[in-house]
């Protein structure tokens, strides 16, 4: 077992002995399930209306259910992912195990990678559980799978980016609550940059600011457009956050 694997195993163990994952996970699934239910009922109501007006109804589940659901997910992830990441470094610093970790014969990059990957696995597990929604819908209706799958790809990338921001926030402080709020804050700023950008209109600065926000990039994936530009955005953002986390962890040794 490599050190990174050892850290992943230990972190997963820590996640699943604490109630946090269970509470966060069940709330996540409850809210996602509830929203999906509402969107489906809403779509059904529209279908009945169309039936009455035109005699036949062909409704688009991709538009009425999945796109709505995927855009709601942005906000749900923004709320729950900081709660998953807040403990990663903050707890180590609070409980003084940080010193132990940094005097172990492993690199800081291995520590950051191990911690990030462990929380990513937890997130992927939770996201996997929402997979039953499209599967159940597929039993009773017809929809286009392609944008659903690219939407899930978008969710994975968006979640990974959020988690990397959370890792950075957790490395900044030894208080878990502060870590959670810092990542909320950072993510909200990233979100709102899209609005700032559109306010500035079609100028170079406006476009540059919009590019920094995840909104547009995620939206493309939800609509079924897979563009390397968007993938690059997520991957480079994530790499930058993890690199900054590495620097922050390294710099705490100097204080």
């Amino acid at each position, binding site marked *: 077992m490599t*050190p990174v694997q050892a850290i992943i195993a*230990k972190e997963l*163990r*820590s996640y699943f002995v*604490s109630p946090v994952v269970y509470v966060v996970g069940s709330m996540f699934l409850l809210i996602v399930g509830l929203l999906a239910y509402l969107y489906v009922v809403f779509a059904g109501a529209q279908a009945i209306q169309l039936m009455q007006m035109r005699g036949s109804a062909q409704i688009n589940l991709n538009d009425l259910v999945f796109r709505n659901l995927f855009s709601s997910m942005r906000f749900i992830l923004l709320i729950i992912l900081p709660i998953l990441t807040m403990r990663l470094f903050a707890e180590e610093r609070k409980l*003084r*195990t940080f*010193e132990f970790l940094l*005097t172990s*014969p492993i690199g800081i990059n291995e520590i950051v990678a191990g911690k990030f990957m462990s929380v990513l696995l937890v997130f992927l597990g939770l996201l996997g559980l929402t997979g039953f929604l499209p599967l159940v819908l597929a039993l009773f209706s017809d929809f286009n799978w392609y944008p659903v799958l690219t939407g899930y790809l978008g969710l994975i990338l968006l979640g990974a980016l959020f988690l990397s921001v959370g890792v950075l926030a957790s490395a900044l402080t030894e208080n878990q609550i502060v870590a959670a709020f810092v990542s909320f804050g950072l993510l909200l700023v990233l979100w709102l940059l899209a609005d700032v950008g559109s306010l500035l209109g079609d100028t170079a600065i406006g476009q540059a600011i919009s590019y920094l926000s995840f909104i547009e990039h995620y939206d493309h994936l939800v609509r079924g457009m897979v563009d390397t530009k968007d993938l690059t955005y997520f991957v480079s953002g994530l790499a930058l956050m993890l690199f900054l986390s590495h620097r922050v962890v390294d710099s705490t040794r100097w204080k």
Partner: protein
Amino acid sequence: MIEVQQITKRYAHHTAIDRVSFSVAKGEVLAFLGPNGAGKTTTMRILSCFMPATEGKAVVAGFDCADQPLEVKRRIGYLPETPPVYLELTVTEYLQFVGRLRGLSGKMLTSSMQREIERLGLGTIQHRLIGNLSRGYRQRVGLAQALLHDPQVLILDEPTVGLDPKQIIEIRELIKNLAGSHSVILSTHILPEATAVCQRVVIISGGRIVAEDTPEQLAARLRQSEKISLTLKSPAPDTDRLLKSVQGVQNVFTSGAPGTFLLECELGRDAREEVARLAVTSGWGLLELKAISMTLEDVFLHLTRTEEGLAQGAVAATAEPADQPA
């Protein structure tokens, strides 16, 4: 094994350690002795490559802490001030994690874990969550962690804190047994610990090394003065002055209860006889007269307090009377 040359650690507003140099030979146990805040922990953090020194050079197990920290980290076992344990893991899970981080696996890992569990008496609690263990057990788990990969160098920051007297004795025995095959540096503010376990003592105060020697020689070297404690029934107002005029007496302190005097005498000169004669002829009512020898404890206090500019009286007042009544 450990070679420290002129290391200095400066923070934004204060200097934690100031040009500290010392060395630990292979198989030697060295005590780092000092009051709280003297710079012990900072020194240990530098040696364990947790933080870099501002200036100076620290070489541990043949590798420079600044240039090759990973090589150093592979060869040391480090027990920080607070035992670095994960409360949500059981003892075995924790040791397994520690071993894996240090590249142990398979049979090697199992046998190392077994060895430490036995050595530190963790057998009965090995499947319990560390969060439910007492302070003493956590400390022992922390020690097991430091010893797990059988490192050449052990850096132990206050290894016996939080243990009960029986456990303290056991841990000291353990450290003594490690000597010879391991180089150990341990910090403590408890003197008997240093005398019981270590071949050499480094006393640090205010970030500087103030003394370095074997426990015995330190005590001997610093016995610059003999002290006499004197209790009188009815001292006269000029008793102070008269006592001071006795040959060999350098200083007279009145401390504590009325009629109690503390005399500081020249080294190697026993003034007790003279003092007794004076007390009797003056009719002060001699109740008690005894010599006080300086224990290592006093030496320590002396060294670390005079550094801070406190009066010598403070040393004298805490000196314990020795068992040699006149």
